[in-house]
């Protein structure tokens, strides 16, 4: 199954995929020019989901931006909340007078919700990729796990998709009484379910050979094209913001980082579709470990004192956010789709001067026209699925 084995005829045909297409994970339009079964060129067309979130950020007050960050990435909204809140805290901390100390209990809860959300997001990503290549059952298993995470989040903050849970200075609500036990039960059953999932699809020779060697991205290409997160690590670059530029309490948790190494075997290449698939599954295992570590570290609640530096869940930042320090800050965090970098500009007032968010899907979409040249038409959906593109993150 190599491209060289077929003979291009030189006759071109233009095909339109989307904007409403079940395999594009959102409203993404791709214009493909094909030569027989081979993609000659591919032009993504963006903007169908543009909601001007960066412009809205310049019109509302600092804490009011948080619900909009949910909509930047609704598959992994906890991490999207967290990215913005960590950035605002970093901005406040540039002025010692405005320094904010997030309570330890809030930091542990943040790790819990961020990693649980990463698990649910990655399960959707790998399930959807399997579905795009023709296997429907794994998707249902992935969605079932996501439902369990959503149940926990619904009890925690009342929402199943756009949580608005992480706030500047902590989290919006403390854990509900038996949350820790419930999360531990979820993690136990999830590990059993993962073994079943891996037997079902990861070790499946048909699926593995289908993805092996397809659209391989070398490490140098991945870096130059700005890939981040699992897509970057699948290409063999050993980098994770949680370990190498840590925020919150990730430094104490010693994050272990899986990298792609041509998991598909003889036909596989480092950075192919199968590597991107497997790296996500390995990351999910690491998230389970991080959740357990955060549960072990969780201090008991300080009842009636939300701002307590150990057992509280929300530092008092209301006055600080009315008059944050004037200046700029760049802060990156590791979302499920990779580095989510906020560039905030403050003019010293209660409304941000500029809110810029750089997302993983944007750069993943930027490499599409490069990696899709010369692959088979049927692989286009597999490639979109393997990069785990969430369209609202591209268009914002």
């Amino acid at each position, binding site marked *: 199954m190599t491209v060289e084995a077929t003979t291009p005829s030189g006759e071109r045909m233009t095909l339109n995929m989307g904007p409403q297409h079940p395999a594009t994970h959102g409203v993404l339009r791709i214009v493909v020019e094909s030569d027989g079964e081979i993609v000659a060129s591919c032009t993504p067309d963006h903007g169908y989901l543009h909601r001007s979130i960066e412009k809205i950020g310049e019109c509302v007050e600092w804490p009011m931006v948080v619900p909009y960050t949910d909509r930047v990435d609704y598959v992994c909204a906890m991490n999207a909340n967290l990215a913005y809140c960590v950035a605002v805290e970093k901005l406040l901390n540039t*002025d010692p007078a405005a320094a904010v100390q997030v309570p330890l209990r809030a930091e542990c809860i943040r790790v819990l919700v961020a990693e649980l959300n990463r698990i649910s997001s990655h399960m959707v990503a790998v399930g959807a990729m399997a579905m795009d290549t023709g296997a429907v059952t794994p998707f249902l298993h992935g969605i079932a796990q996501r439902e369990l995470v959503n149940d926990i989040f619904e009890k925690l903050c009342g929402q199943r998709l756009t949580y608005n849970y992480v706030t500047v200075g902590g989290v919006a609500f403390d854990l509900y009484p038996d949350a820790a036990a419930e999360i531990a039960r979820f993690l136990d059953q999830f590990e059993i379910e993962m073994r079943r999932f891996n037997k079902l699809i990861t070790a499946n020779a048909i699926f593995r050979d289908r993805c092996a060697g397809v659209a391989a991205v070398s490490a140098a290409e991945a870096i130059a094209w700005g890939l981040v997160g699992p897509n970057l690590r699948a290409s063999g670059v050993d980098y994770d913001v949680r370990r190498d530029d840590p925020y919150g309490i990730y430094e104490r948790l010693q994050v272990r980082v899986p990298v792609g190494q041509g998991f598909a075997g003889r036909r596989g290449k480092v950075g192919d579709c199968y590597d991107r698939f497997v790296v996500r599954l390995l990351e999910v295992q690491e998230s389970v470990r991080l959740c357990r570590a955060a549960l072990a570290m969780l201090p008991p609640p300080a009842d009636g004192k939300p701002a307590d530096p150990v057992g509280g869940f929300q530092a008092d930042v209301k006055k600080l956010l009315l008059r944050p320090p004037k200046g*700029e800050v760049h802060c990156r965090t590791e979302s499920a789709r990779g580095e989510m970098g906020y560039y905030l500009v403050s003019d*010293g007032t209660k409304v941000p001067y500029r809110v810029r968010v750089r997302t993983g899907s944007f750069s993943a979409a930027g490499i599409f026209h490069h990696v899709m040249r010369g692959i088979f038409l049927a692989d286009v959906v597999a490639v979109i699925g393997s990069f785990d593109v969430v369209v609202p993150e591209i268009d914002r």
Partner: protein
Amino acid sequence: MTQAAPQFATLPFATLADRARTVCAAATSRTTDNGQPFLLVPAADLPALAQFLRDDAALRFDALMDLTGFDLLKYPKAETPNAIAVLYLLFSYRHRHRLQLRVLAPRELCTVPTVSAIWPAALYFEREVFDLLGVTFTGHPSLQRIMNPTDWEGHPLRKDYVYPDAYHGVAHLREGQHFETNPPRAGDPPPPAAAPKPPGGHA
């Protein structure tokens, strides 16, 4: 899985800036209002400097983390209020250091040379900055709007952006409504008069 990152030849900002100035003598070290350092670069020198920063063995800025910008028009006490700041956030996966380059592009003749030949990630970032801030990147192979439709007017993240009333005949507001930040038009109703103060303080 690896346990911990190995040690890297990470350089501090002052060393990075000195090394950059060997190629671009006009680059000056500045800091933002809260002390974040960056390198201010004249637009004309940008491609040569970017090439050097990527290829020099001690620097090796192999990644463009982000390319963005903001309008300085309403920033308090800005030195050059009549400019758009274009920001290049560079990162080196090899040495793990980072550097911010900044180019000030005048608002009227807003052109900056492209760096997309050096970091292909810039192909998309530059389209976005062009769309939202109206900076023209000369030499970019396909500089089109990426988020707004191609026939959209204006650049929304500019601080003097005027919201359009309608797009292809579809009105954005109900009759009689008006965008607060837009300048008043001829047929607009007068702004509502401030409510008179109740005598004697609180009712």
